[in-house]
């Protein structure tokens, strides 16, 4: 209960929080902000719309202007649109000090192998093990298991191929890890046309 502050006078009158007339933008915006503050997960737009009977367009405008406000202010916290929802996070610039002082953990890194397997699954989902291995040219089972254990990948069904193999796809956690709002926000795959295009040193 530590973080919801009660106003003592209003406590006795449970109705006072809701006036029946139209609520003004400032007050709704504050409400959205409070909900975002109390949630551990990104909060989808639909949650606000359903819980407070707010018009979706209005909610979207209010949330976007909250994002802008925190962006312009450029303080210690930012509002971001991520994993199909909105979420307050600390500004990346303080990461090192926060880790040192309050001991927030550094996210476990990703190996090159794991990352490549994940990229293939992300762009080609739903994809079966054999297709992943064909693309990478190596056995990938261990990598896929590791990715599943980190909840970045999951089986999403079966493909109509001989043996009806399991097909894999990415999770919501994946979106969160990579700061994506939705799958279609993945950076475009750049076609590599010639070998010479990619000579790097």
């Amino acid at each position, binding site marked *: *209960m*530590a973080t*919801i502050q009660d106003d003592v006078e209003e406590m006795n009158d449970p109705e006072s929080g809701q006036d029946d007339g139209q609520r003004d933008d400032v007050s709704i915006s504050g409400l959205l902000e409070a*909900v975002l*503050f*109390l*949630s*551990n*997960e990104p*909060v*989808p737009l639909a949650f606000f719309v359903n819980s407070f009977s707010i018009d979706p367009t209005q909610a979207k405008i209010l949330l976007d202007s909250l994002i802008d406000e925190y962006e312009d202010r450029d303080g210690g916290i*930012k509002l*971001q649109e991520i994993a199909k*929802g909105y*979420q*307050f*996070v*600390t500004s*990346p610039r303080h*990461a090192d000090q*926060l880790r040192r002082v309050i001991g*927030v953990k*550094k*996210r476990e890194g*990703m*190996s*090159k*192998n794991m*990352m*490549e397997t*994940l*990229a*293939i699954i992300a*762009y080609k989902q739903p994809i079966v093990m054999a297709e992943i291995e064909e*693309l*990478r*040219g*190596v*056995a990938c089972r*261990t990598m896929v298991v590791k990715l*599943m254990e980190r*909840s970045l990948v*999951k*089986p*999403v069904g079966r493909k109509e191929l001989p043996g009806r193999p399991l097909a894999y796809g990415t*999770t*919501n956690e994946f979106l*969160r*890890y*990579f*700061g*994506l709002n939705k799958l279609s926000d*993945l*950076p475009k795959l*750049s*076609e*590599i046309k010639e*070998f010479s295009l*990619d*000579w790097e040193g």
Partner: protein
Amino acid sequence: MSDTEERIEQTEGETAENSPILHIDNFDGPLDLLWELIKKAKIDITEITISTITEQYLGYLKLMEKLNVRVATDFIRMASELLFYKSCALLPAAQIEDEYFVPPLPPELVQKLLEFKKFQTASRRLLEEFEAHANRYARENIYEDIIEIDDFGEVSLFDLLKAFADVMESRKDIEEKEIVFDEILVSDRIEHVRRMLEERDVLHFPEIFSAKPSRMEIVVTFMAILELAKTRVVKLLQHKIFGTIRIMKYVHVQ
């Protein structure tokens, strides 16, 4: 799975100027190695021939072998693929009257390499995103009535299967009872494996099954192996080169 391999340097190939210094642990797999070799030979891209690349690739594998580095099967499979392409290119039918004609890389291999590179590049970009977002922290409210947005959080089929496996694992006594129904007992399978191990020290995983194992037999045998490993009767080894699991008698040191 080259990431665990030892680091070696190519010290041979004294072809002066661009004698390649390649580290095995730098390669994710044969495609990565192949790409690197082609890159090394970049003097003129159009002049890369399948035979040059094949030679270099094989030379590289030989070197690894010489230095006692384990070569994953994936690398060997690619070697045979290259040899196949090379021999195709040398077939008389494919020859052109020009004696200077050198067969280029087959288009399907080029396509494969380009696809591979496309995802490798994409993965690098994703990794940057990953790192950027690892620096943002969200609140972790310990408030009792936290708003749960998603009813279950995310539960996947993998979790479901794992949960089932956990139950089966922890309730083996009951599992056995059920298996009686199918007339395959875990204890029988344990005995079976033990008997085989009396004759030989090492068994390959597929050997412990009958010719056409039923699903139940696989599961039960699998559980028997788990049990034997847990009680330290056997040790399970999987060599990356071969990929098959080998079952060894456990040698008690102390």
